[in-house]
């Protein structure tokens, strides 16, 4: 069995998963942050 080729693709998969997960996390956090900021602004407008 050609283990090198299998492990090569495993390595590529890990390499792709890493940044994909980090980008997903980053987008999720930025979206949540934007939502919370929008909610705070709404509250401030309502209080005024």
């Amino acid at each position, binding site marked *: 069995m*050609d283990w*090198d*080729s299998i*492990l090569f693709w495993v390595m590529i998969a890990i390499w792709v*998963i890493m940044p994909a997960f980090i980008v997903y*996390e980053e987008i999720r*956090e930025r979206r949540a942050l934007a939502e919370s900021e929008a*909610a*705070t602004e709404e509250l401030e407008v309502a209080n005024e």
Partner: protein
Amino acid sequence: MIQEIALGLLTSGVAVGGASRLIVDIAMYFGLFVIVAMALNFQYGNAGIPNMGCAVQVIIGGFTVSAITTRLILTLVGNAGVELLPWTSDYDWVYNNPSNVAIVNTWLSGEPLFGISMLLFTLAVSLVLGAIIGWIIALPAIRLRATYLMIVLITMADASQIFGRNIVWISGGTLGLFIPDIFKWYPGDRTIVMAIITLLIGLISFFIFRTMLNSPYGRLMRAIRENEVTVGSVGKNVVGIRRNILMFASGITAISGSLLAFYFSYVVEANYQRALWTYWPWLMLILGGPGNNAGTFLGCALVIAVRRVIIVEKWFLQEVFFFPVAYFEQILLGVLLIAVIMFRPNGLIPEKLLYIPGVNYRKLVDEEAIVDWRGAPKARGVSSGISGIFRTLGGKKEEAGD
């Protein structure tokens, strides 16, 4: 049937040579520098500690492999009845090293468990030694202001290389040492195995740093970065916290040095130069954006890809440039650094405001906060100290750090 097709697809057309060889090389260096740059981001990006001594921590990992693991392997293999050449004196340690490693490698080809256990042992020891060296370099330096701290750490990086060059029993002095191949039992190219392990460790360290930065301890770190006087005035042990951050990050950084040693199967102090293991990670951090793991990743990916292509394709590039291509890397380092600081001082992905997962901002603003200080724990020693780090990693919340 499906298994056969999948196996056929996986094994088709890829042999580790040519372009694939370059990809494995880039992946390996990407994994190594991700570990170093994320640890640097943890120290500088989030806690404001300008660690210009990353090379010290990386070199400790390399020295762990050459001075401890190699000795341990030689001792164990000798005890197993394998005939080795003398290696106890400095002279024998260096000049009999290639022959001894060749003998040990033959024995290791039938001992996969031994090889894996030596890898785990090395990672554990380098983690501990890295933390100890972090504590040692913190002793004189941590109370200094940023600029002086940077100068002291730069000199320590050079000092560690000088130790390695002149003390033969550490890493064979200027000649270096061959390292037993712990993946000799693997029938193919062991560098792919090393690249996978390195990428996995990079991923794990990302999760560890992410957990810590999203915890009360992470918020405390950012508070120290913004204004350490204020944090100190509310009773936090700023020096202790900074020392612990340096120790923790040093331990993680040292792992990359060990992985590099196993990747090359060779340790020489010249592999752990200050420019490579301090300035390049700094460029990655500044290019991507400090205080931001995604930025660190992006910076790493860009810089590593460009660097490895320059190194591997230098014969082609030489025809394009009018100056020796050997200088191109250093020119790139300087030009990129100046360009980023001039045009994008916050990096490609600037740091975002702090988002605390699970906190309901609407509820926080709507309801009147009632704080009962009588039940609050003592300010000092709650979130500072090693126990604070482990408590954070264990997922336990603490109130004083908020």
